């Protein structure tokens, strides 16, 4: 199948250019592609143009932002055929004493913590059934976790994490950005963001920070990384702001 890397027009297909740039070709393919490039100025120009394309935010800063889902973790689409069963499921959950993170009730569940007076962070692992992840609880690579926050006052909220390597990563909002406005509430409110745990095992700290004035992710991420680096407590990352954190332990696959 000689020349299979060429398209119908006799030039490299985009896929082969991408594979070349990613060092994803077999030796034979590379030989063929490079032979074509040596003779084809058009494809050389395309290769150069493709090489110039960079990721939207340069190199990926951290792993977790990739594993982010902008949607709330658990509410199901309204068109699911078993939607009619939802009231029964909720009733059964209440009957058996389970109150999930996405239910209407905001009763404190076992393991819920309130640190200080201003902010409460809950970390929930997607189900079924969803479960509150308490301090020191184990999570696993691939686990999808969401967040609920209860704030005592209006302000600007940001949730971020730091992994075993000491690198910070944004959770909410999903990219390094300004903190998002967040209203005070008597109950913990679901934050429309979720992350999926990556493969790096060890301690995973999730921190929610709320300030009265707008602030940027980089302000708190650098403070967080510095605190972890120096093994200092994470309290008061930003002056005049409230925060709460949950420390998780990520271990290998669940058996």
């Amino acid at each position: 199948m000689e020349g299979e890397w060429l398209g119908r027009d006799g030039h490299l297909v985009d896929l082969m250019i991408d594979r070349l740039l990613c060092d994803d070709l077999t030796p034979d393919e590379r030989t063929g592609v490079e032979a074509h490039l040596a003779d084809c100025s058009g494809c050389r120009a395309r290769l150069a143009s493709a090489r110039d394309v960079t990721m939207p935010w340069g190199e990926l800063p951290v792993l977790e932002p990739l594993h982010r889902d902008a949607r709330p973790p658990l509410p199901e689409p309204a068109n699911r055929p078993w939607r009619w069963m939802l009231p029964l499921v909720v009733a059964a959950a209440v009957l058996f004493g389970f109150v999930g993170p996405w239910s209407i009730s905001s009763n404190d569940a076992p393991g819920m913590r309130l640190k200080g007076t201003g902010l409460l962070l809950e970390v929930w692992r997607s189900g079924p059934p969803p479960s509150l992840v308490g301090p020191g609880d184990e999570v696993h690579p691939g686990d999808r976790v969401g967040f609920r926050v209860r704030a005592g006052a209006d302000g600007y909220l940001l949730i971020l994490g730091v992994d075993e390597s000491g690198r910070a990563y944004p959770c909410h909002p999903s990219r390094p950005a300004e903190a998002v406005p967040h209203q005070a509430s008597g109950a913990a409110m679901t934050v429309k963001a979720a992350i999926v745990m990556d493969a790096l095992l060890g301690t995973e700290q999730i921190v929610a920070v709320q300030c009265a004035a707008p602030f940027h992710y980089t302000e708190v991420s650098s403070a967080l990384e510095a605190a972890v680096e120096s093994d200092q407590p994470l309290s008061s990352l930003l002056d005049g702001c409230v925060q709460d954190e949950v420390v998780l332990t990520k271990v290998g696959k669940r058996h």
Partner: protein
Amino acid sequence: MPMMQCYGRPGTRPSGSVPMSSNRPAAVDVGAWYRRYGPAVYRRILRFYGRQEAEEVLQEVFLRVLRVVHSYRGDCSPVTWLYQVATRHCLNRLRDARRRRELLLEFGRPDWSREIDRTDPDARIFLSQLWRDLDEELAMIGVYYFVDGMSHGQIAEVLGVSRRTVGNRLARLRELAEQAAETT
């Protein structure tokens, strides 16, 4: 020299294929894939979307990858597999948006992409209207053929089907294009 094969759609395994456990590669580090292959996926997305929207789509594609990466068996190169995931996602996303626009034409052709042969009337029909109503497999084959300019053999190998199947599908595509042309 064949390209390595990618069987079927990401997330499924073809009937009669080797069980996943027998030749499945070691667990994929999607984060590492993102760092290494993200630019290629991003370029692929730029074939369908402008830069601003492509950033969002890139995240969506890798979320999709997280969900279906278990089906990657190492039968094809990671870039080829990701290319399929991205192509499928972009097509479905465009269709979901119910945009009555011509496929791929809104943002023009990226510099590195080959030019679409617009002298082919079937290609014009496919790009302007047909792609929206086709089933997923036919739409993918149409994109690989009319947009990417792949040969029958390349499409067969990327999708993990026979050349004969590709030939039959393309014949069906042309038939549909002719019908569509007659009714417009």
